[in-house]
């Protein structure tokens, strides 16, 4: 990959990845940070990253892992310092999306990652399994639980999301 090709890849993939990481982290700045860091690593280790044949997936994987452990550390720190759970989510203008993001943040990390990879990044269950190092059955269970939890927050199957406040 030449420098120009990398730059083009970066310019094209960065927005998409930050969107996906936002869904995972619920934090815009955090999403940007981890995606950017992942790209730095991608160039730094471009041989591995090219050998893989799926550069965007490689970057996403790195970014997700960064997000996981950042989040973990932040949570630990907050628990220590404030003895309360993670920071408040500041709702955006869009109530439905605010509810979705809030709901996602309540999911255990493994479920959240499975849901995001499968339903947003369009990975198959098997791909999610190999990505997260969990058995297929476990991934299915995480997806089912994650979806059930989200369904409790988001009005399920109603199909009328426009202008309709979700619970």
């Amino acid at each position, binding site marked *: 990959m030449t420098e120009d090709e990398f730059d083009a890849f970066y310019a094209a993939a960065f927005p998409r990845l930050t969107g996906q990481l936002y869904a995972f982290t619920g934090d815009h700045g955090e*999403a940007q940070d981890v995606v950017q860091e992942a*790209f730095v690593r991608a160039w730094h280790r471009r041989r591995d990253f090219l050998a893989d044949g799926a550069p965007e997936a490689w970057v996403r994987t790195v970014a997700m*892992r960064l997000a996981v452990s950042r989040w973990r550390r932040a949570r630990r720190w907050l628990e220590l310092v404030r003895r309360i759970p993670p920071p408040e989510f500041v709702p955006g203008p869009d109530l439905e999306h605010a509810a979705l*993001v809030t709901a996602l943040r309540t999911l255990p990390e493994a479920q959240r990652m499975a*849901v995001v990879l499968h*339903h947003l990044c369009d990975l198959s*269950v098997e791909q999610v399994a*190999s990505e997260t*190092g969990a058995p297929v059955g476990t991934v299915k269970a995480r997806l089912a639980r994650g979806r059930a939890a989200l369904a409790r927050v*988001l009005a399920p199957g109603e199909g009328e999301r426009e202008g309709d406040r979700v619970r």
Partner: protein
Amino acid sequence: MSDDRRYDADPHDTGYAGELSGALHTLAAEHQSAPPVPGAEIRRLAVRRGRRLRTTVVVAGIAAAAALAVTLTAGLRHDSGSVRRTTPATGPGLHPSPSLTPTSTATPVVADALVDLTRMTMTVDGRALPVSSGVPEQPTPTGRFTVFGKYRIRPLSTGNGTGGSGAGGAEELKAPWVIELLSADRKKTTLILALTYDPKAPGRSPTTGGWIGLREADAKWLYTRLDKGSVVLVTGRTPTVGASPSALS
């Protein structure tokens, strides 16, 4: 659209699954952000990191970092073992890079912990912890490892490494604060653990069955420092000093 996302686990709510996918896609699409810096800057950061042995460079601090690079380059060299953990390591599942394939500019030391078997130390976050490694007959494997498991207490009989020959009777031993390591090529495993059965060994002599033994307080501290996916670099050779005289391999 939701066809390929269906699976047999719960056929009754594929409609909801499709809707969830749609909502997530919309959410992600609305929160895309343009690259804050150009690709050239990313490449520059990567190269700089390789050259400077990965000190902490936050993008916001580029200017400061540039100044530091000029003034501190020499001073940073000894710091390579104590890479601060701004960012976690890429984990083992990451279509791994079996061999170390550094960029051409330098050999980066990207590790959360550095174990030097020769000096019998482990360097983490600037702290040097004394370690006791495997006896010459069962040397601690070297190379690049990632953390793939953590146990507050773990029986050693089930581990790889067939027992601490320095302690004997490993079947009955349990060690606290155990961190499992898997090599980058996924062929070797070892453990970092608290050497409760031989607290004087760390820093003095190799006593384990191929593990990395720490004093209990150090092991407990380390346990909070390394997460799954953290990178541990094991270098050096098992010292023959203090080892059993029959085995000078």
